[in-house]
């Protein structure tokens, strides 16, 4: 009596958006992809023309190190980020509310600053080992701080908030039914977490891990402190040691290959769930009150992480800044106001631009357009996986090509001011680099808008513009806020792009820190470094402080 379903029928979980597509919006996606890809393509082409793609010796070791570091940091951030998210989402313990947003703040500490603070605190001459020696005697020997392990610890401590934020948002959004069902079936809270919550939070974990691994792949400053030879370090080594830009770019494309693999893994991890989180519009889980030792342990764990990743670097910086201030009053220095303005300005414009691009991408994809449009949207995220300096060179190459073109077309001064370094170049480079995190956040929010809601608005006569303004934006605004925050934080911390592309007279806080730090003036670098943290903390606190403000509802 039952009719056998035809074998060709797909499961109903197939993603169904509005396949009719909108040429204008689809074109916008292609333009965005072209603009974002062009600097990278320009460098790659230049390298190809200069001498073909050639990998320098020792690549095998770099690849192995990169793999090891990436896997270790991914594991570390998964455990730390997910574990902390679980603690604060499912349990009640003293200080939970405060800790749950304090744990986001390490996002505001640049890895290169934490790396230096960590080394200066834990290396041989630092206070910890000195203290240990004075207690335990001189024979202690040196702790292997400068190692793969050290780099892993620092990167995990600065990058875990990506995972923590996204998983926490997913957990707070889940319907309690599945968790309760598991508990009534006799599962311990830990087992219910592992078997029920974790699989449901998997897409968010995957998205967080994608951001983490891209950061690890392109990090140069931090891993270099720790003597870890990743492919990105190789890029700089080959470029600056051998003046061999072609080989450096070849190495950079290797980094890009890693990123492609990471994004493919992310898609696999996310699976179908990406577009079907509708089941999870619950009111969140009932928190279990921890008592006694468990409560102390939970509070202690959260506080320790927050202290190590945020408290320690801030404390060290404040100490240094105070000792530098004792020598000369830093607040009479007009450069503070100047550099602060530059940093905030460029970060704000970059954030706004990246978010606009991301919203256009997400909205255009929701309007349909097929696999090519989806591929183009995906391509906009690869800039995150290209080392900053390579993007910078690409932007330069692109602008000078545009300049030559304009001159050939008869405009004598070409693009003029564009080529000679302007904030426009920095902005383009920022969009290339930071569209990925913005898009991840916005896309996650869009994924939670049921396609039927978009379809309903269209059939009620709302065109794409009204659909965006009245339906998509209001529903995705938490994702937009998160995207703005992530880009501001990233942009304020960003160094290589600004260093390479800034015009005369334009110095950001991060450049200033670099100027002082590269001459080893740590105490004087402390105050601008603190300002970077402060600037980044403001949007982080605004966006994530309130527990009701969830990422991508």
């Amino acid at each position, binding site marked *: 009596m039952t009719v056998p379903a035809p074998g060709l029928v797909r499961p109903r979980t197939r993603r169904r958006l509005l396949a009719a597509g909108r040429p204008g919006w689809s074109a916008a996606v292609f333009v965005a992809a072209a603009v974002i890809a062009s600097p990278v393509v320009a460098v790659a082409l230049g390298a190809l023309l200069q001498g073909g793609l050639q990998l320098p*010796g020792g690549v095998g070791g770099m690849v192995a190190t990169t793999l090891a570091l990436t896997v270790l940091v991914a594991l570390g951030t998964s455990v730390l980020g997910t574990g902390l998210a679980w603690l604060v989402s499912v349990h009640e313990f003293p200080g939970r509310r405060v800790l749950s947003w304090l744990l986001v703040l390490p996002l505001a500490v640049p890895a290169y600053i934490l790396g230096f603070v960590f*080394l*200066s605190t834990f*290396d*041989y*001459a630092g206070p910890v080992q000195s203290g240990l*020696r004075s207690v335990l005697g*001189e024979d202690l020997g*040196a702790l292997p701080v400068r190692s793969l392990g050290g780099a892993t610890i620092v990167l995990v401590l600065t990058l875990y908030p990506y995972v923590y934020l996204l998983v926490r948002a997913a957990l707070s959004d889940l319907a309690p039914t599945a968790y309760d069902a598991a508990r009534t079936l006799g599962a311990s809270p830990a087992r219910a977490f592992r078997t029920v919550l974790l699989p449901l939070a998997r897409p968010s974990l995957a998205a967080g891990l994608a951001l983490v691994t891209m950061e690890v792949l392109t990090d140069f400053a931090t891993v270099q402190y720790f*003597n870890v*030879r990743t492919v990105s*370090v190789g890029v*700089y*080594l080959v*470029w*600056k*040691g*051998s*003046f*061999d*830009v072609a080989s450096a770019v070849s190495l950079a494309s290797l980094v890009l290959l890693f990123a492609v693999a990471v994004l493919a893994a992310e898609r696999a991890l996310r699976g179908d769930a990406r577009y079907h989180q509708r089941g999870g519009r619950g009111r969140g889980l009932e928190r279990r009150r921890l008592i006694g030792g468990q409560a102390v342990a939970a509070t202690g764990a959260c506080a320790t992480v927050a202290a190590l990743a945020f408290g320690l670097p801030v404390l060290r910086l404040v100490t240094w800044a105070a000792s530098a201030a004792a020598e000369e009053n830093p607040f009479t220095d007009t450069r503070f106001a100047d550099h602060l*303005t530059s940093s905030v*300005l460029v970060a*704000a414009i970059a954030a*706004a631009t990246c978010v606009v691009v991301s919203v256009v991408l997400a909205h255009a994809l929701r309007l349909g357009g097929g696999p090519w449009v989806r591929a183009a949207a995906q391509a906009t995220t690869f800039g995150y996986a290209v080392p900053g*300096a390579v993007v910078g*060179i690409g932007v*330069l190459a692109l*602008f*000078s090509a545009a*300049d030559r073109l304009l001159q050939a077309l008869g405009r004598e001064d070409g693009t003029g*001011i564009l*080529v*000679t*370094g*302007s*904030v*426009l170049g920095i902005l383009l480079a920022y969009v290339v680099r930071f569209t990925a995190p913005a898009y991840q956040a916005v896309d996650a929010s869009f994924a939670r808008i049921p396609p039927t809601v978009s379809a309903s608005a269209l059939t009620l006569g709302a065109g794409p513009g009204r659909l965006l303004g009245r339906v998509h934006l209001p529903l995705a*605004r*938490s994702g937009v*806020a998160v995207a703005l925050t992530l880009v*501001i934080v990233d942009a304020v911390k960003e160094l*290589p792009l600004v*260093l390479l592309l*800034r*015009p*005369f*007279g*334009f110095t950001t806080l991060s*450049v200033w820190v670099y*100027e002082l730090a590269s*001459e*080893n003036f740590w105490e004087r670098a402390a105050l601008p470094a603190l300002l970077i943290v402060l600037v980044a903390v*403001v*949007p982080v606190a*605004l*966006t994530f402080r*309130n527990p*009701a*403000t969830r990422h991508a509802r």
Partner: protein
Amino acid sequence: MRRPLARTLPALATTLLAPLALSGCGLLGGEEADLQVYSARHYSLEEAFAEFTDETGLTVEFLYGDDAELLERLKAEGADTPADVFMTVDAGMLWNAGEQGVLEPIDSTVLDAAVPEDLRDSDAGWYGLAMRARTVVYDPEKVDPSELDAEDTYAALGDPQWKGRICMRDETASYTQSLVASLIDLHGRDRAQEIVESWVANDVQIMSNDVELLETIDAGGCEVGISNHYYLARLLDEDPDLGVALYWASQDGAGTHVNISGAGVVAGTPSSAEAQQLLEWLATDGQSAFVDGNHELPVNPEVEPEPLVASFGSFERMPVDASAYGSLNAEAVEVLDAAGYR
């Protein structure tokens, strides 16, 4: 539930856009100075340029960055570059800039007289302006200077007696690369390879900056290291009781390894006369202003180093072979790599 966010978003937007409204200008760069300098050097530059402006009335503006990146920027900008002067902190990079054709040949009797021959290449267009020595530093409580080999001090640190006692900079530092390049130049690649391997065999501790290296010696973490002389001068300036002493390396042999900061005039600049004037001033009247603040050594033999550096005593330096440092740098990286130096 939505309220907080609804309030947060406008607040966030206001925070972001306020500076935009306040500034408005400055987006496309400030007003232009008479001379614009791309510089991989930051230290003392503002003070020195201010003095130059006082004396000549020419204003100078500089943009600080990494020298390899600034060179790429110069090449990409081509004729449109706003830079008139390119200043680097490494002889090899100066040579490389000359090779890449971004510098203009200079004909200046003032510069030729002020800068020793091995520290300049007037055809290629660059001149050394400040000098630093990369020499041996040690813990005077544990090491007697007589234990150090006066003929080839760098190579002798590979002697088994130093096992577990030495510390050096990481391989990504141009200081390390240039030192190894000079060893290749001096001894040939095979011998240089042996030297680096003997350091590694001695369990050399790798540090990520010279200050950390000096502080580690002071704290007892290692006994002998290789550092730029001016970092020691700087630390001694802050703390005269620092437990680290300087040893001029290889005085009975090839001399102490030195490297230079230098500059050239960017090819095609409309201000080449003024640019040359700046270089001449920096090599003569401006030498002290340029080098003293950072405890560097003047290139001009007529100019005395500042007192703290002078207290290290005079020394014989290894002649600088910029083309070798530049062309051998890649080999130096390979040698370090092959030796497992990290």
